[in-house]
């Protein structure tokens, strides 16, 4: 496997991403979006697409930059630092990965439209309060040459604004994945009022028509297409959370150096020093798991479950600790809406749940490690 050090190109990508985001999507951007009553930022996504981010996993012959999963993680990690809002994970990582599993002209065309930033996607997978694709109940009833979809999806991230949906539904002998426009007749989307101020929706499907052409991959074999997509998404989300943890941590260490209490900088208090040092240690260890997940997805994608679940579990624990310590060490000010720490905390909570929580991924690690 390639080394667990960023290559020169990857380092340049990270620097570029950081430079771009500091300018175009700094921390204050999310607050402004929220205060303006917006849940997404299409203009920003256009800019990202122009930089090649929308096509980061799209083959070059479909107009993408095809930089791979490690690169996608690098971008997601930088996005996490400034809490940049975009459909990057849903569209550029998960939908693109799903579409890449299929090698027909339709899929290639769809990939081209992702790369150009023309089309955004959301994955309509979960139905209960926890991530669990296997528990899918939504029915795709056979109807002539096509299907009729009926049921409810919940926590569809980016789902209120997405142009298209990848919908997981139960067919005669298994699960099938459908790629359909979000405005198809029978679909009702209800935007959820999420604590991270981003787009997520509950979606009702009332006898929605789907043709055979709408099936992505093989009927009854959704997971062949969906599993790689979910794993890519889990890894990128873990990367985002690691960036988030680094952002929250950086803000906290800065505060420790500057804030005075009882006549001295609070960063001089050893108890806080040791907690900060512990937190930094945790972020370093998690960063290794993230880098490893990218490398494994790039090089042995068929065997990525352990690496990906390890990354998501570690990132969840680390981001949670980072925002908890961040708020506590800031004291009262960290609890105020006027300060940015709370945005980190709320996003960390949503990201902790999305695509499988700590327990979910811990169970997968345990299973693969034999207990």
């Amino acid at each position, binding site marked *: 496997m390639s080394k667990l050090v960023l290559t020169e190109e990857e380092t340049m990508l990270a620097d570029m991403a950081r430079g771009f985001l500091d300018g175009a999507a700094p921390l204050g951007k999310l607050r402004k979006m929220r205060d303006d009553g917006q849940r997404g930022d299409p203009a920003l996504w256009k800019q990202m697409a122009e930089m090649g981010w929308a096509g980061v996993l799209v083959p070059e012959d479909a107009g993408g930059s095809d930089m791979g999963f490690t690169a996608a993680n690098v971008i997601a990690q930088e996005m996490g630092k400034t809490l940049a809002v975009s459909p990057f994970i849903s569209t550029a990582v998960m939908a693109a990965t799903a579409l890449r599993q299929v090698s027909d002209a339709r899929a290639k065309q769809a990939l081209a439209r992702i790369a150009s930033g023309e089309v955004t996607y959301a994955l309509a997978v979960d139905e209960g*309060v926890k991530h669990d694709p296997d528990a899918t109940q939504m029915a795709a009833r056979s109807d002539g040459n096509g299907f009729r979809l009926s049921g409810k999806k919940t926590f569809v991230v980016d789902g209120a604004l997405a142009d298209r949906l990848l919908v997981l539904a139960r067919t005669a002998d298994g699960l099938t994945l459908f790629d359909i426009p979000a405005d198809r007749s029978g679909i009702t989307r209800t935007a959820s*009022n*999420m604590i991270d101020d981003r787009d997520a929706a509950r979606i009702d499907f009332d006898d929605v028509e789907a043709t055979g052409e709408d099936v992505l991959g093989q009927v009854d074999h959704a997971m062949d297409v969906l599993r790689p997509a979910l794993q890519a998404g889990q890894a990128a989300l873990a990367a985002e959370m690691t960036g988030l943890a680094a952002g929250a941590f950086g803000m906290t260490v800065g505060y420790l150096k500057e804030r005075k209490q009882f006549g001295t900088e609070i960063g001089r208090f050893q108890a806080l020093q040791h907690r900060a040092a512990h937190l930094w240690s945790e972020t370093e260890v998690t960063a290794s798991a993230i880098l490893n997940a990218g490398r494994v997805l790039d090089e042995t994608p068929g065997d990525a479950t352990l690496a990906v679940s390890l990354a998501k579990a570690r990132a969840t624990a680390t981001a949670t600790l980072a925002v908890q310590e961040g708020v506590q060490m800031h004291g009262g000010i960290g609890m*105020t809406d006027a300060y940015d720490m709370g945005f980190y*905390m*709320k996003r960390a909570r949503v990201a902790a749940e999305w695509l499988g929580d700590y327990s979910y991924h811990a169970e997968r690690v345990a299973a693969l490690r034999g207990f």
Partner: protein
Amino acid sequence: MSTGQTSDGFRAELREWLKANCPVEMRDSGMSEDAICWGGRNWKFTSTAQEQWLNRCAEKGYTVPTWPKEYGGAGLTREQEKIFKQEMERIGARSPLESFGIWMLGPALLHFGSHDQKLEYLPPIARGEVRWCQGYSEPGAGSDLANVQTRGEDKGDHWLVNGQKIWTSYADKADQIFALVRTDREAPKHKGISFLLIEMAEGGVETRPIKMISGISPFCETFFTDVKVPKHRIVGEENRGWDVAKYLLTHEREMISGGGAGLSGGGRALGAVLNETLDTMGDTLRADAMRCEIDALAIGLTLERYKDQAEAGQGAGDASAMLKYMGTELNKRRHELMMTAGGSDALEWDGPVGNRAGDWLRTKANSIEGGTSEVMLSIISRRVLGLPA
């Protein structure tokens, strides 16, 4: 775990009274912000039942059951108070009245106030007629509470107060504020502070809510500009306000720590929530929940033990810092677990599981307000364990 075999007579009588007087609408254990009756001059009752319930309780002294009868209480013993709580809980009765007057100023006045002050201030608190707020913290002071910059200039019959307070909970809805004011600028930090009672409607007092990460604004900034405070509106002696403040802080610690103890309404929530999600709950959540439950029960018993000790004349003193520390850290853990148990439903403001996210975010302040966990640990380390400063 408790049988409560004493005072059967009192229990029976109380049960009868509750049956007759607690309106059905007040029997849902509602703990949401909306369900609380805060009282005060500008209070708008959310229902006739709420008003009835307050008035009936106030008449019996049940808004402040352990206060002496002459000050609006029911004069209950600690044993009777336990029974009172059990019987209230048994029928799921809401608290008739909550206020900083009951929790904080009342105890301080009972301890430090003159007889006249008690007669003047306590009954209106007990009846929910006057709503108080607290003016301790100042911008930039943080955990260094004695770093009071708000000053009161001695003008003979009054102090002229100028300065700013922060984290004045519900100051925008309060009628009065009890505040720490520096009345001697020459004295050492802890020696020149007085504990003053200030009318909010007085000219020169302004408040501005602070929006919190939970989306609500329970806290305010409060500004004093040339506010006149008559000399009799002081609790304790001039420049000895820190004694009152310390007493109150200890009291506040115990109160806040109770929030996480898991023996009251909030405590059952974890078990109930977990039951809803037993099917989807992974081992790590279940294990964390077991630990949390065990700690909650033991901390609850510790609150009981400290109360029993206090009654036996052994005050907790600085050890109350432990209750505050353990209780608030527990409460944060519990709400983290409830968020995890709630999954995606808990990620929406006012979603299918109500305002669980707001409650969760609110708990993050528990270990900051009333003295941070770090301050509590330092108090324990130095004053209880005697480690060198």
